[in-house]
C-alpha cells in the first residue's frame, strides 16, 4: 500500500459532524440521516492532515485510517 486509505463505519457514526467540519473536502454528512459520507477513500496529499485530524476527533471512532507502510519495515 502506498497511500493513506480511509474507512468509515456508518453504524458507529453518531452524526456529530466533526469530520465534515474538520475535513470538508474528504467527508460530508448524509442530508437525511446526518451520518458520515466518505468523499475520498484515498485523500489527496493536500487533505491528508485534515483527514487524520478528523479521524482523531471523531467522537464515536467511526473513521479508521490506514497509513502507507514505510519502506524497509
Amino acid at each position, binding site marked *: 500500500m502506498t497511500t493513506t486509505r480511509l474507512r468509515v463505519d456508518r453504524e458507529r457514526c453518531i*452524526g456529530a459532524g466533526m469530520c465534515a467540519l474538520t475535513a470538508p473536502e474528504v467527508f460530508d454528512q448524509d442530508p437525511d440521516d446526518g451520518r458520515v459520507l466518505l468523499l475520498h477513500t484515498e485523500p489527496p496529499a493536500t487533505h491528508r492532515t485534515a483527514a487524520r485530524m478528523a479521524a482523531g476527533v471523531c467522537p464515536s471512532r467511526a473513521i479508521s485510517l490506514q497509513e502507507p507502510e514505510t519502506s524497509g519495515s
Partner: protein
Amino acid sequence: MSESVHTVTALPTARQPGCPFDPPAELIDARRHGPISRYTHPGGKPGWLITGYDLVRSVLADSRFSSRRDLMNVADFELPPAPPGEFLLMDEPQHGRYRKPLVGKFTVRRMRLLTERIEQITTDCLDAMEKTGPPADLVTAFAKPIPTIVICELLGVPYQDRGSFQEQIDTFMGGETSDEELMAAYTATQEYLAELVSAKRANPTDDVLSELTDSDLTDEELKGISLILLAAGFDTTANMLALGTFALLRNPGQLAALRADPALTDGAVEELLRYLSVAKTFMRTALEDVELGGQTIKAGTTVVLSYHTANRDPERFADPDVLDLRRQYDGHLAFSHGIHQCLGQQLARVEMRVAFRALVDRFPTLRLAVPAEEVVLRPETADIYGVKSLPVTWDREAS
C-alpha cells in the same frame, strides 16, 4: 495500584476570587496530583473525580460507563429514570432511538444555511443595543436573545411565547432556586411544551418539531426532546457569548487580534470553548468493574468528569491557562466526546462565529462598565457556568 491517591471530599462551590475563567482551585489541585481522585458524592456515596484530559475522554468513549440517571449512585435515595425523550440521560438503544431522527437536522451543512438568518438576528440585537446604550447589559441585549430566537425559530416556538419560556429556563438552569421554584418552573415548561407538541401535530409548520411529529415518537417523547433541545439551545450558547466576551475584554491583546483579523474567528470560537468549558462537569456510572488510571472503578460507582480541568490539562495543551486564539484546534472536550457529544454543536459554532464577529466589528471601543471584580458570576452549582450580567459600555461614534 497507587496507594497515595488524592481525595476530594466535596466539589467546590466557588472559584478563586479574581479568576472567573479558571476552574476552582480544588479541582486544579486535584489534577496536579493525578488525573483521578477519590471523591465522595454529596449523599455520602463513594465515587471518583476525573480531571485529566485523556482519562475524561476515555471514559466518554467507553460503553462500560452509563449515562442513565437511574443508575447514578450519588444520593441516599434512588433517582428515577430519565423522562421519555430526555436522551442525555440514557444509554443505547434508547439514546439512539431519540438522537437518530434529530441528527440529520443539525448537520454542518444545514446549520451553515442558517448563517444569514443568524446574522440578521444578531444585527437586530446590536442595533437595539446601540440605540439604547451605552451602557448595556450584554447578557440581556446580546448573549441571551440571539440563541433564544435561533432555537425557538428552529424548533417552532411561537414568538409571543418566548419571554415566559426563557424565564422558566433561567429559573431551572440558574443554580440558585429553591426546589419548589425549580419544580414549578419545570412543570410550567412541561405543560407549555405538551401544548406546543399537540399544536404542531394538529397544524404542522416549517420547523424541526413539526418534522418530528411525522415519526413514531409519542407526544410525551417529543415533549422531552423539545425540553432538552430548548434548554441546551438557550443556556449554553448564551453563557458562552457573555462569558466569552468577558474573557476577550480581559485579554485585550487577543481581542485586538480578533478584531483585526476575521480569519481568526473560527479558531477563536474553538479556543473560547476550550478555555471556558461552560458545561463544566458530567457524570457516568460504571456498569462493570473498570481499571482506570491505576484504580479500579467498581461496578455501580459514579464518576464525576471535569471537562474544564481536562480542557486545561498541561499534558494535552501547551500553556493551557493562556487564552490563545491562534491555537491550532485539535480536539477539546467542551462539547463532550463519545456518543453523547453535543447534538447542537454545529449550530452553536455558527451562532458564536456570527455573534462574536459582529460584536467586535460593531463596537471597536467595547469595554466593561464596571470593575472586573464586580461582574456577577453564576455559582458553581449551576450546570452551566457564566456571568449573570455583563455591564458594558462604548464610545458613541462622533456624527
